[in-house]
Every structure is written in C-alpha cells, then in structure tokens.
C-alpha cells in the first residue's frame, strides 16, 4: 500500500497532465478528493511576484494621474508654474533691487505691511517669491537664469553690488554662461543659449539649481515625493553627478553634486491636493514643518526634505 504522499502526488501528476483522475480505493478517494480539489484550484494560482508587480504599476499610474489632475484642473496660480523658488534673506529690498537692475525683474505682487514680507517678482517667464528673515534664518540657493544678453546682465549685476564668480564664457554644453553671487549669498548662473541649443522641456527663464551632497538621493526623493521625472544625469569618471535635471509638473530643477552642501533652497509647489502630496512627501522621507491647513490663499503645508530644503505645498481654493 503506497504512502499517502505518493498517492496524492500521482493524482497531482495526472491533474497537471490533464489526464483523467487516477482511480483509488474508496478510502483513498474519500481522503484525496478534498485535497485534489485544492490542488486543482492551485493550478491557476498567479506567479509569485505578479501581485507586487501589478501593485507597483498601479502606484506609478496613480502618481501620474495626480499630476494629470493638477494640469487638467488648472490648479496652478495664474502666471506661475508648478515650482516657484522662494528665497528668504535678511535684507530683501537689496536683493529685489539687484534682480530688477541686473535681470530686468518685474515686481508683480507685495503683501500688505501687516502680513509679513512677501514679494513676488517675475524674471522672463518665471516667478520668484522673496521673504525677509532674521539673520541666520536665510533660505538661499543657486539659480540658473536665462537672459537675452548676459554680458550686459553680468555688468549690471556687478553694478548692483553682486560679486563676480566667473565672467561670461562660451561653454561646451551649448550656452554662454557666467556667475554672480548676491549680497546674501545666492548664486546666480546667468546664461544665454546658443541659437542651435534647444531648451529642454519645462525649462523656464529661472530654474532652481541645487547642490546636494548626493544628487541621486535627491532625485530619488523628488521622484517619490513629487512624482519628479529624471531628465538628464551627467557624471564624471568618479561617478560624481556634475549636472542633472529633474522635472516636477511643468517645472525643472537642476543640480550638481557638492560634497559640502552649504545652500538650502526653498520651493513653493502648486498641487491639486495639498493633503495628499503632503502625506506622500512624508512617506518619501520628508519631515513635517507645517501640517496642511486652510489659509486665505488656499490649503497649504510645508515639509523639509532629507537635504534640508524646504517645500511649501499649496492647493488653490475651489472656484
């Protein structure tokens, strides 16, 4: 009399081969039938990782549908893009004067005196938000600014008190570029593209340029938190990221790795659902600065990413 495990295996062999069930004696049949019913159902079980692969696919689609919703419902304030850099300095008027003189910036909005210092300026097609802060609380960063004549802009920036960090020169990556630093320490890479150089999708007149210690980790965070899309990564022979770009919604953030990170840019994001993006950013490793709450200008929250950069999130009030 064969062992039970042998009898069951023969029956499973027949089942898998699509052959008629093997006949057994009455006692075996009574024991085996329910086991074979289970075995029969198991022949249709999914592959081991199918469930998790499909889950990942749906998560990707869900995050894309968020951005899609944002664009479709015009959840971005008129004249703005998904990402607006914000800068906090202790002497904001000096910075605004410099931006106006050197980059032809236009002041488009200023909050009433009793609402704190908040000024919005436009450079080309891009907006910047400028706040004041106590010394030591600055949010300064680097910016890539495209202007029609950067030689003239470079001269004007020095006239307005900026420090030259490199006179304009033709660069091998398709643009003429120079750099200046303002009084607060913001670094402005000013450039004019060669006529043959095409602007990448989403590139605005001003793009925030970050210098994180690890660019790949920053890109990973932006991808998971804000559905960022990696656009380009250029590494040197040691694997250090010299230049990279990531797109969020209709905006681009550029970066170059700096082992001793000293700047801490700030960003303001228009999103379709502040609470949802806030939760997603926390899940991606951000820490909460301000929980979502209703403000006169919309529903807003703020987080800090693992590099110390601050991100304000805002969804406009329903119209």
């Amino acid at each position, binding site marked *: 009399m064969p062992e039970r495990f042998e009898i069951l295996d023969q029956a499973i062999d027949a089942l*898998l081969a699509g052959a008629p069930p093997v006949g057994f004696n009455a006692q075996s049949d009574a024991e085996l039938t329910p086991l074979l019913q289970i075995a029969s159902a198991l022949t249709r079980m999914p592959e081991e990782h199918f469930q998790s692969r499909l*889950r990942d696919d749906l998560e990707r689609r869900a995050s894309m549908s968020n951005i899609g919703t944002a664009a479709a419902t015009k959840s971005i304030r008129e004249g703005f893009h998904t990402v607006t850099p914000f800068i906090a300095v202790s002497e904001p008027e000096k910075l605004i004067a410099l931006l106006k003189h050197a980059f032809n910036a236009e002041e488009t909005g200023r909050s009433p005196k009793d609402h704190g210092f908040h000024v919005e300026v436009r450079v080309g097609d891009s907006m910047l938000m400028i706040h004041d802060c106590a010394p030591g609380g600055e949010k300064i960063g680097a910016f890539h600014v495209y202007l029609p004549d950067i030689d003239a802009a470079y001269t004007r920036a020095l006239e307005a008190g900026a420090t030259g960090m490199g006179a304009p020169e033709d660069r091998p990556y398709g643009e003429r570029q120079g750099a200046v630093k303002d009084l607060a320490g913001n670094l402005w890479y000013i450039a004019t593209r060669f006529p043959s150089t095409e602007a990448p999708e989403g590139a605005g007149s001003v793009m925030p340029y970050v210098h994180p210690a690890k660019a790949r980790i920053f890109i990973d965070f932006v991808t998971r938190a804000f559905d960022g899309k990696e656009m380009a990564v250029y590494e040197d022979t040691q694997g250090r990221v010299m230049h990279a770009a990531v797109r969020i919604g209709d905006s681009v953030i550029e970066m170059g790795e700096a082992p001793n990170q000293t700047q801490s840019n700030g960003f303001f994001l228009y999103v379709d659902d502040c609470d949802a993006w806030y939760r997603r950013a926390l899940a991606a490793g951000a820490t909460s600065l301000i929980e979502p709450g209703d403000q006169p200008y919309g529903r807003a929250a703020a987080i800090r990413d693992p590099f110390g950069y601050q991100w304000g999130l805002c969804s406009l009030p329903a119209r």
Partner: protein
Amino acid sequence: MRAIQDDRALVEAAQRDPARFADLYEQNFYRVYAYTARRVQDRHDAEDLTAEVFREALAGIGKFEWRGVPFAAWLLRIAARAVADHWTRNGREAGAPLSDSEEAAPEEIERNAMLLQLVNRLPEAQFRVIHMRFVEQKSIREIAQAMQRSEGAVKQLQLRAIENLRAQMESAHA
C-alpha cells in the same frame, strides 16, 4: 454594515487621492484574480485580465458612484466585461469560453480567493514546493534538486502544504 462603511471610506479616500487606491487593490486582488482565472483557465491570460481590471478601475475611480453595492461587485462587473472582450478578441483559438451555466458561483470565487491568499502564508518550504509544482510546473525530481532534498521529502512537503491549506479553509468556514 461595518464592512460596507469601510468599503465606502476606502473608495472615497481613493477618489480624493489615487495613491490610496492601493488599499482597494490589496483588499480585492485575489477576488478579481480568482474570478478571471476561473473564466479563462490560462494563467497568463488571467494575469493580463486582472491587470486590465485594476487599471480600468483606477482610471475610473473618480466616476464610481456609491449606491450601497460593494466595491467588489463593481470590480467584478469590469472583470466580466474584460473576460467577454477577451473571448471576442481571441475567438475560438483561445479555447471555449465558459457558458453562463458553468460560470463560477460567487461562493466559489470567494473560496478560491481565500485559498490563493492562504498559499502566501504557508511556511517557506511548503510555499516553494507549491509554487514550483503548480506555477512553474516542475517535476518532483526537479524540485528536489532545486531544494536539495530527497524526492520523498518534497512529496511530503507537498502533502503537508495541501493538508495545511485544507485545514485553514475549513477553520475559516467553521
């Protein structure tokens, strides 16, 4: 009633934030898979159809209107349509579709969904044997080589896994 309320909360959360669709997916994956696998037999077709159902559900979650019917019923309606389209696309070459009278009863779908879920909770060695045998369609000899065990030991693991599943199914229904 509680289940329906939970269902509704999950649906509304996913409508506000599509990232929350993951909860509905986890809750219904095996049900949808068990349904499609019952209707099309072939594993790859069942996987493709399951993926199609959840993608369509995610894309249409905003349009889902709550009328007190469980969310799973909506998913299974999408699945029924996907299966019908599958047969239309593939015609007779893909085999004969089940007639309505052969269609699985809801209890059978639930039972199979539970079984597939329980497989994932089997002890590792038992799970490996079941997966290799029923999904990868390996022979006992091949499994024995892969697991570095005797053929007799693999057959015993196979028996224990299936008895284990049967016992858990019975206690779940008790």
